[in-house]
Every structure is written in C-alpha cells, then in structure tokens.
C-alpha cells in the first residue's frame, strides 16, 4: 500500500538534540532528519560513537537525553514488537548458527509478522523468497549457513533484515571483513534497495571512499558531537575528511572519491613529468617509496593533477583555455630541481614539450638520475631503477 506523499508526512527518521552513551555521554547534541529511500552513511573514526548512536536508534540502549522519532512516533513510546515491523538491524556479530539453511535463517526475519508459534504462511514465504532474490542469494536458500563464505553469509544476513519488510534498516559496518567484490556487491544491493523499495538505510561505514560513492546523505561524528550532516557531495570535502579522521598524512580527493597517503619525503624529492592521465600510478609508486613530489606540467583537470594534489607537494598545472605561463614554470621548476633527488619522465609526453626537454637536460647536467618507464607505460623499468638507486644508497649508507 503506497502511502500518499504529502508535505504533512513526518520524516521517517528524526533525531532531536540526542545524547547517546552508556553511563556517560559519548556523543551529544545530535539532530538530523531524513525521509524515505535514502542511503545515509554514518562516518567517524573508530570509537567515535557510531555504534552507540545506532544502538540508541535501534532502541537497544536508552538515550541519555533528547529523542528519536520514527515515522513521527517517539521511539520511547513505540513497542519493540511494533518497531520491528518498521525497522530492522544488521549487527557486526559474526557468529553463525549451526544446522540452519539459508531459507530458514531469512525466515527468522518474519518474526514480527508471523503468528504466536511463528508459522509461515504462503505470503510469508513469498516475502522470504523476494528478500533472497533481491540480495541475489536465491541459490543460497537450500545451503546451511555455516557452510557459506563471509560474503555469502552477509547477503543472507541482509535478506533476513529485509524479510522484516522494514522502512528503515540500520547497519553497523555491513562491509567489514568482506573482500572487494562482496563489499561492492553488498553496497550496490543496499543502494538498489533504497531506490526500488523506498528503504532508508542508515549505515555506519568505515570506508569513506565507499560512503562517498553510495550515500545520499552523510552524518559525520567527531569528538563527541555531530560535525556534519548533509549530501555527501557537500559534506565530504578534502578538509572535512582530513579533519574527521585526524590524519594529516592522508588526503582525500572529493572528485575521484579516493584517499591518498601523502609521502613523508624520507627518500628525497622526485620531479615527475606527467600529464595526459598517465602518471597517477607513478605518483603512488613514488609516494610509497617515500619520495615527496614535484609534478607538472598539465591541465588542472588532468587526472594526474588530482592525484598529485592529493599526494601533496608542488604541482605545476594550468587552467583549460589559458596560455600556460611557460616562463614562470621554468624559473620555478629550475628552483625546485635543486632539491630533487630524481627525475621521472612519464610515458605520454604532454603539454610544453620544450620545457620538458629543457628540464631533462638540466637534470642530466646536474647529475640527477633521470628515470623512465617502459613502452606502453610499463612500470617495470622504473621500479628496477628505483631499486637500484635504493641499493646504491644503502651501500653508501653502510659504507659511511
């Protein structure tokens, strides 16, 4: 029965100046509201109170202050058995049940709907069937769940939560301990359910990159308070992500939705001639080896520009439609070259070929090693030369 959408309809989930915690408050002053069919991610560092907030919304623990409303009804006044028909949960508990088939496990989710003895009607069974199908786990129905892999079991766990026919699903780290394939699959399934079933998902996620890609809204928690609530595109700025996780060395690129680890520069500086979306892997490789980066010369919209910026260091880029300031670049890059330990030539050439040529010969003059990649951007030769350099340094160090 589709409910008529009207302005007077209360939000599905509304939280008003809520304080959560066990005996002492962990997060205070949480206020937010969201409607149907949305994917809401809850982000925050470990121990920031994500799980505590979820457990408060799921009525496992009582709020220390403030209120939670589900469909306009205060959580404290709803009976848990009625709540179970509107809201289901997926917890981090990984323990399995012996001797229970997928279908039976999912059917446990019919608990709030079935009769006193838990008998399943044909209608119940078709809900179970649909739940299994919508998580693409129909083939797991007849198998014992303790024989399933982590990823398969998580799908069954989702199907059980779905069999409750909830409007709101709370999930605590639903993709922890899953491999990449299943992580994407589980998030994709949830995303699809939001759209197809008008299900609202509130999920604590530890993976900010994934959250940025699947969420409509994000809630960020830090230092015992809500620091951000809104569309992920607005909330997850590079600064906000850095701030949220307290990690000065990681840089978040909101366009690529990727998190890069800034190098510490212990190996010195590397001057990379990138461009045409070809040097991102070179940047990451060098960053891992401990080189801080100087890179150029490309458009600001080049993929290389994003990755290089996220990795920190000096970036020579210019706006589309502008004339590149070649002279300024030359002067500044000659200055940077003084501090460079190596120079790396990207595979594709790129804008300003004369400037590049000039810098390469300048580097050679100054005795700075100039490294290249193999044909078709094969990184093998580059890695080999880096290793050789590394070993050479090692020799010098041990001699000294």
């Amino acid at each position, binding site marked *: 029965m589709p409910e008529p959408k009207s302005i007077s309809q209360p939000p599905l989930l509304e939280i008003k100046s809520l304080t959560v915690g066990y005996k002492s408050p962990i997060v205070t002053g949480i206020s937010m509201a969201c409607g149907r069919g949305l994917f809401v991610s809850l982000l925050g560092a470990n121990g920031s109170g994500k799980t505590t907030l979820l457990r408060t919304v*799921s*009525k*496992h623990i009582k709020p220390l202050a403030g209120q939670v409303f589900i469909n306009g009804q205060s959580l404290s006044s709803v*009976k*848990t*058995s*009625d*709540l*179970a028909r509107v*809201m*289901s*949960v997926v*917890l981090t*508990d990984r*323990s399995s*049940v*012996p*001797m*229970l*088939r997928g*279908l*039976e496990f999912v059917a*446990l*989710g019919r*608990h*709030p709907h*079935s009769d*006193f*003895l*838990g008998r*399943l009607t*044909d209608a119940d*069974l*078709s809900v*179970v*069937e649909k739940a*299994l*199908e919508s998580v693409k786990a*129909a*083939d797991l*129905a*007849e198998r014992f769940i*303790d*024989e399933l892999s982590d990823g398969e079991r998580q799908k069954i766990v989702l199907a059980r939560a779905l069999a*409750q026919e909830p409007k709101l699903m709370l999930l605590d780290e639903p993709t922890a301990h899953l491999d990449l394939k299943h992580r994407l699959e589980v998030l994709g399934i949830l995303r699809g359910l939001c759209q197809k079933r008008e299900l609202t998902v509130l999920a604590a996620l530890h993976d900010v990159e994934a959250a940025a890609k699947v969420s409509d809204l994000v809630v960020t928690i830090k230092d015992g308070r809500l620091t951000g609530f809104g569309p992920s595109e607005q909330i997850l700025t590079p600064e906000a992500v850095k701030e949220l996780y307290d990690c000065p060395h990681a840089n978040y690129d909101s366009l690529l939705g990727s998190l890069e680890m800034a190098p510490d520069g212990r190996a010195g500086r590397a001057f990379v001639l990138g461009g045409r979306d070809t040097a991102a892997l070179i940047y990451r490789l060098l960053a891992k080896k401990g080189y801080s980066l100087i890179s150029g010369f490309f458009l600001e919209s080049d993929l290389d520009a994003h990755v290089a910026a996220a990795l920190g260091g000096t970036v020579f880029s210019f706006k589309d439609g502008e004339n590149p300031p070649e002279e300024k670049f030359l002067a500044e890059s000659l200055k940077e070259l003084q501090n460079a330990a190596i120079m790396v030539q990207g595979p594709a050439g790129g804008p300003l070929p004369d400037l590049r040529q000039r810098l390469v010969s300048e580097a050679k003059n100054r005795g700075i090693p100039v490294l290249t990649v193999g044909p078709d951007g094969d990184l093998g030769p580059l890695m080999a030369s880096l290793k050789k350099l590394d070993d050479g340094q090692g020799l010098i160090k041990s001699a000294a």
Partner: protein
Amino acid sequence: MEAVLNAKLFTRRLAGRRVAVFYALGALTLFLVILNLCIGSLSYPVHQVAEGLFHPYENSDLSFIIWKIRLPRTLATVMGGAYLAASGLLLQVYFRNPIVGPFILGISSGATLMVSLVMLTSLGLQLTYITPFLTTIAGCLGAYGVMILVVAIAAKVRQGATLLIVGLMMGYLCGAVTSILTALAEKEKIKGFILWGMGSFSGFKWIEIGIMAFLGGGLVLAIFLLSKPLNAFLLGEDYAASMGVNIRRFRLFILMAASALAGLVTAMAGPVAFIGLAVPHMARLSFGTSDNRVLVPGACLMGAAVTSLCDLIARMWLNPVELPISAITAFFGAPIVIGLLLKRGARM
C-alpha cells in the same frame, strides 16, 4: 544463470523429511518402551505384559512387576530423558554454545551437595518420618537453591559467558563441600552416595511419576509454545531484541525452565550425565535443523529414546548387576556424537 527458488516447495520438502524422522523416532521410542517392560530378570512375552498392564489390581507376580517396578521406571526414564534433553537444548540456544549441558549452571552440584548432607552425615537420621523421600527432597532443595542463586545473578549480569563462569564456580564450591563431607564420611555410606551420584531411574514411586509428569510436562509445553522467541535467540540477544523479544523476561524464563527441568530429574534420579549435552546435537543432526519448533519436541523424543535404550543396557548388560546409567549414556553416546559430527564435517 538465474537460480530459481521455490520457497514453498522447499519448505514442504523439509517439513516432509522432518515428519518422517518424527515417525521413525516415535516408533523407536515405543519399541524401546515395550522392550523395557518385557525384558528383565524375569522376561515376559508382549501379550502377557499387555495383560498385566490391563489388570493392575490382579494379585500376580506379573502385575506386581509391571505396575510397581517396570512401568514407573520406564515412564521415569522416558520423561527424564526428554526433560534433560529439553533443558540442554534451551541452554545451548541461550548460551549459543554447543558444549553446554543442563548441569553447566551447577544444578547437579547443588543437588549432590544436599544429598551428600543427608547420605553421608547423621543429619538424615533425625528425619526418619520422611525417609523414603529424603534424598529426593534434599536433591530438590540443592538443585533449586542453586537455580535461585544463578537466576538472581543472571538478573544482574548481561554477558552469557560471565553467567557460565558463575555456574562453573558454583559447581566447584558445592563440589568442595561435598568432597570434604566424603572425606569425613563412614566407608559404608560412601558407596551408596557415589552410586546415587551416577544416577538411576529405579525405585520411582507413582507420586513421583505424577509430579514429574505434571510439572515437567507443563514446562515442556511452555517451552514449545515459546519456541518462536527461542528461535529469535538463535541470532543472539541483540537480534532477538531488535525483533521485539523482551530479553530480560525471556532470559529469566530460559534459565528457570532449563534449571527447573534439570533439577526435577536430578532430584529424583540423581545426576544423569550426558543426555542433556548430547541429545540436542543428535536431534539437530537427525532433523537437519536448528529450528526450535522442530527441535523442542524432537529433542524430547530423541532424549526419551536414547535414555530408554541406555537404561535397558544398564539393566541387562551385566544382569543381575545393574550398572549406573551415567556410565552407559556416556559410554555409548559419546562415540555416536563424535561420529555424527565427523560425518557432518565437524561443524557445530
């Protein structure tokens, strides 16, 4: 590749298999009950036993043996086995732990302590007017004393594991007192006490059978009626709570029902080992499910069958010497459980 799922068909197929297992177990139990009535120091053919059953007041040896000895014993065995299995099943579900049995919370140790007080000291001598029921009453006091303590503690602690350890410690405490009493006791009294400690279904009086049937039957019925929330508990307390189960109330019910059943059997038959631990596994494996709506009656039936078989062996193997039933239950049961688990790929 689109997997086609027909939940209705599959559920019907599973149900069909389970009904078949029920019939087979029921037939086996009936067969063992008849065997237990027929075989003994004096064996009778079935039709004579039936005659004895239908003429209870006839003044014959047969009628006496059937009505005063074998029938009470057989009924006690069937009920005792069923109750211990149900108790073990409840606690295995509650603790989500396969090696938990009905005595894990110290029920049997409490009963043993109280029984040792009356059997090993001269305390019982002053109570001669209730002598025939003395050990039963003592066992009852001990079992339910421990149960009340454990439930009181359970109302305070949240963690199941903590409760398990409390139960274990309770067992050690009672065991310590019992061993001191044993060290101080007279030699002749010790054998009787040790034999009590290994359990026996002999010497049941009809009033005891009545109490057992009434109380235990009521508890088992209540457990069956609550198999739906019990199923929710399969997922753990947090999930059960999220589906609308009142955790506090239901946890106390599980602990009380399990302890009450185990206490009932222990008070009357002594601590019968192994049934409560192993039978739920045997039932789970033969019915192929953890669904408690199947398992509560299934484990009861399985418990009745297994205990009947063990009692038959205990009585007949070294006839006329009767062996303690705990020896038989463990001796035959343990290898069966290990075998079944290995066949299923050693998963519990």
